[in-house]
């Protein structure tokens, strides 16, 4: 006998955003149901043990942007969420040197001076601008965007809030803001720095997770987006969720359950029930039907409206807009189980930056070329990657003495081009292996013994090509 319960609200998809929405609604006293097609919750913030002893955060892998207001509102630490900040990072060069990024300002100035004395003051100028811009934008993240085509009071109020904030900046800062929102990260860095290596190190934040190159306008704002977070109030800091990124969604799930919400896993939405222009509930793959006057979809806009909603219930121009919405996967992920801590010969013994994000891209040109490959439907022959070994800080991620390495790789297309045809089907084992080899070749720039550090013979490399950016 299929279920036919009704709720006050239904959320389709138990990713971190769906769960957050559900938590707020449940804590407001509503009866909430979350339905999730997988047998586990978490969406892209999920940690699973794919090899005994090793925990992988499959997709997202570091945390900073989770708003502290949400952490506080939902009291997530009580449900086991603990974010451990990591320090700095580094970019390794083929000639055996590195540029290290320290959170200690004096150490960073010394390191910059080692590469390019002129960039020391430039860095202060750069970070001043970035922090000012972050301060300007942060308040907007917790508000709704105004619809400039509407004359509703709420939209006008939001527009007025924006204008007043902008006016408060003063002419100079306002000009800087407008430029920041429209420039490419490459041009922005070129205007500040001399050293190609320092530019390459800083540019990563401008392209990560996007289908844009370092010289594509708009990427300066992407950098800002990644500087806007915090760990325990330390602005711009990044950290690991203890136990993997799944800890975040586990905490959200527990919070929801405590507030009386219901989570059903293994319960994929077949369709949203719409009647006469109003949503009535969801019909699940397993035949269950649940009713609610409000349904929120944690799925992307294409899936939501093109696959799971009856076309005849939606206006034609809206559907056209949805069809044209661009979602272009640009990243791949390698999760590597290591027999021990790999050697980084360039780095001093016990260097703190090894606990941060590690890279091997040494110029903006190299990053732009990586993007050109992707435009043609190929993975980058000389890719950018963001590589971390979280088990140095969070020992729960790997067995004693072993390590786990996460490598976010950009760019890799969702639809791989082969013989003039682009298709996701082309990601066969050979293609995956070739991509992995290409990444390993480049990791060797930083740690030459990486190939010996795999946990063999159970080769536990797993990878994910993001179907969606983000």
């Amino acid at each position, binding site marked *: 006998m299929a279920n036919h319960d009704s709720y006050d609200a239904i959320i389709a998809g138990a990713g971190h955003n769906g769960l957050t929405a559900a938590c707020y609604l449940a804590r407001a006293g509503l009866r909430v149901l979350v339905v999730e097609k997988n047998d586990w919750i978490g969406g892209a913030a999920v940690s699973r043990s794919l090899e005994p002893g090793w925990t992988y955060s499959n997709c997202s892998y570091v945390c900073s942007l989770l708003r502290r207001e949400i952490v506080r509102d939902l009291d997530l630490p009580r449900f086991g969420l603990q974010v451990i900040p990591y320090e700095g990072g580094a970019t390794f060069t083929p000639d055996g040197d590195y540029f290290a990024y320290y959170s200690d300002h004096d150490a960073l100035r010394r390191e910059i001076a080692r590469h390019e004395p002129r960039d020391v003051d430039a860095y202060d100028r750069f970070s001043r601008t970035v922090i000012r811009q972050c301060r300007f934008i942060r308040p907007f993240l917790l508000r709704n965007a105004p619809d*400039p*085509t509407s004359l509703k009071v709420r939209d006008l109020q939001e527009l007025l809030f924006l*204008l007043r904030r*902008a*006016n408060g900046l*003063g*002419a*100079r800062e*306002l*000009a*800087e803001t*407008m*430029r920041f929102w*429209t*420039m490419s990260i490459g*041009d922005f860095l*070129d*205007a500040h720095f001399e050293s190609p290596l320092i530019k390459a190190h800083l540019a990563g934040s401008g392209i990560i997770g996007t289908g*844009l190159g370092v*010289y*594509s*306008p*708009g990427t300066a704002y992407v950098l800002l987006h990644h500087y806007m977070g915090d760990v325990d109030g330390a602005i711009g800091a990044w950290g690991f969720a203890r136990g993997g990124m799944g800890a975040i969604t586990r905490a959200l799930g527990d919070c929801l359950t405590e507030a009386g919400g219901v989570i059903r896993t293994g319960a994929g939405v077949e369709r949203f029930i719409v009647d006469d222009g109003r949503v009535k509930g969801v019909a699940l793959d397993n035949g269950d039907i649940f009713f609610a006057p409000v349904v929120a979809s944690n799925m992307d806009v294409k899936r939501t409206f093109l696959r799971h909603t009856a076309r005849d219930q939606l206006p034609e*121009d809206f559907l056209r807009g949805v069809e*044209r919405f*661009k979602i272009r996967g640009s990243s791949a992920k390698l999760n590597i189980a290591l027999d021990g801590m790999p050697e980084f010969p360039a780095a001093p013994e016990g260097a703190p930056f090894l606990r941060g994000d590690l890279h091997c891209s040494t110029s903006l*040109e190299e990053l*732009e*070329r990586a993007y*050109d490959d992707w*435009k*043609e439907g190929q993975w980058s022959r000389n890719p950018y990657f963001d590589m971390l070994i979280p088990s140095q800080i969070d020992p729960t991620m790997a067995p004693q003495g072993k390590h786990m390495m996460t490598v976010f790789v950009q760019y890799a297309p969702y639809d791989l081009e082969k013989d003039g045809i682009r298709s996701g089907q082309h990601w066969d084992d050979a293609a995956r292996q070739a991509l992995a080899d290409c990444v390993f070749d480049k990791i060797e720039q930083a740690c030459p013994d990486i190939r010996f550090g795999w946990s063999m013979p159970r080769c536990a490399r797993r990878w994910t090509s993001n179907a969606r950016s983000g």
Partner: protein
Amino acid sequence: MERFDALVIGAGHNGLAAAAALGARGKSVCVLEKSGVVGGMAAEGRLAHLVYNLSEGEKRRLGVNLAEVDTVSLSPDGAHAVVRRGAAGFADGRAYPDAAAYGALHARLVRFAGVLAHLAEAPPLGLDGGLASFASLREIARLGKVGLGLKRLGKVEMREFLRVILSNAYDTILDELPDGPLAGALASDAVRGAWAGPRSPGTVFSLIYRLGHGGAVYRPEGGMGALAEAYAAAARGKGCEIRLNAPVARVLVEEDRACGVELADGARIAAQAVLSSAGPLQTMLLAGVAHFDIEATRRARNMRAKGSAAKLNFALSGRPVFTGLSEAQHHARLLVAPSAAAVERAFNPAKYGELPKSPVLEMVLDGTRFSVIASHVPTEPQGGWTRAARDQLEKVVVQAIEAHAPGFAGLVTGCEVLTPADIADLTGAPGGHWHHAEMGLDQVLTLRPIAGNARYALAVQGLYLCGASAHPGGDVTGLPGRNSAAQLLADGVL
């Protein structure tokens, strides 16, 4: 010492337009040109060989006969597309399957261009004194007009406008059309002269800019030289003096006021105002950087102006014959831009200082002269624009033309290659850039050419920018010059 009310550095079309506007108000003006010809980039044989984006008013003022021409976008399979404004067909007269979609897209972009046209006709919104200051009320009124124009589009179109205006040309075009010569033509128009490929965000804005005033393409009767002469005649008609071969060595500044110029031969001319067709950095250098604050010079130094277009002027021993084109179609604007993807690909090597392998071409045939704009080329290739690099560029371009006009190579009796470096030398345009400064979203309107100097005036009183680096930007429109003169008068300098 000789004395004028105003001196204009550079007799390009914008310098001449500024001079004419001041002359019309009874001011005595002298235009100083370093080369021996007027017109700057629009002079015969320089970069420009066609005219777009020219307002009806400007056409009347100049009194030049402009012949509207078709655009032929050549296809490798011989199915060439012929376009005039929003109408598309095949070269052999067959109906183009995507003609309706193309027409709708073109009409929409032209409509959007119409909304923005108000902004080009006057100095951009200033930021001094904040958004709500009393001084900017008039500008807010002008913005209100744009807002009203948007409102008149209706809600659906207005949303569409807001969606595409910051977007990239590639997606916007391919959302409506399959990729091919028609999409390629639009994509190439979006980025010709720009340091951007059609996939770069912001290229819809540059496409809309080019489609100003209906999106027509004109050939001036008598060539570009006639148009340049018309600008000069208009200035002379208002009593302005034009001196050729009179390079300016520096702008004279006293107590932070511009008070004249010194020519390369040491002669000095006094004036109350100096207008410069050069870019902001070049102008600051002429006046002496000591007169500007560090932030302003830093911004000027970092202004983006990388030329990406080269001009090849071929002299031919006979008429080239393009496969699949009628006699009349040979006189259209001919494009080699087989697809939007190909246009994007053509930008790739330029980014790394490499010469193009399959350049995008815009070609105009005039008797046995054949004028070709090739893009994208590097501003300065690795190793510089050596003889070998120029020869290589010529070879690649001839090959690309030969593919559509067999026997073309045998007709070539001479070829003048103008690289971005040459164009910079000849005209003073920063980086040899078509628009003097990249028309990126970070360098248009209030941010053009650099933040803090959008309203033509530099920090030295009486020193103004009047070239294409200033708002609204490049193309032969005369607007930067005219707006600059209007601002100078509004500021009470003269």
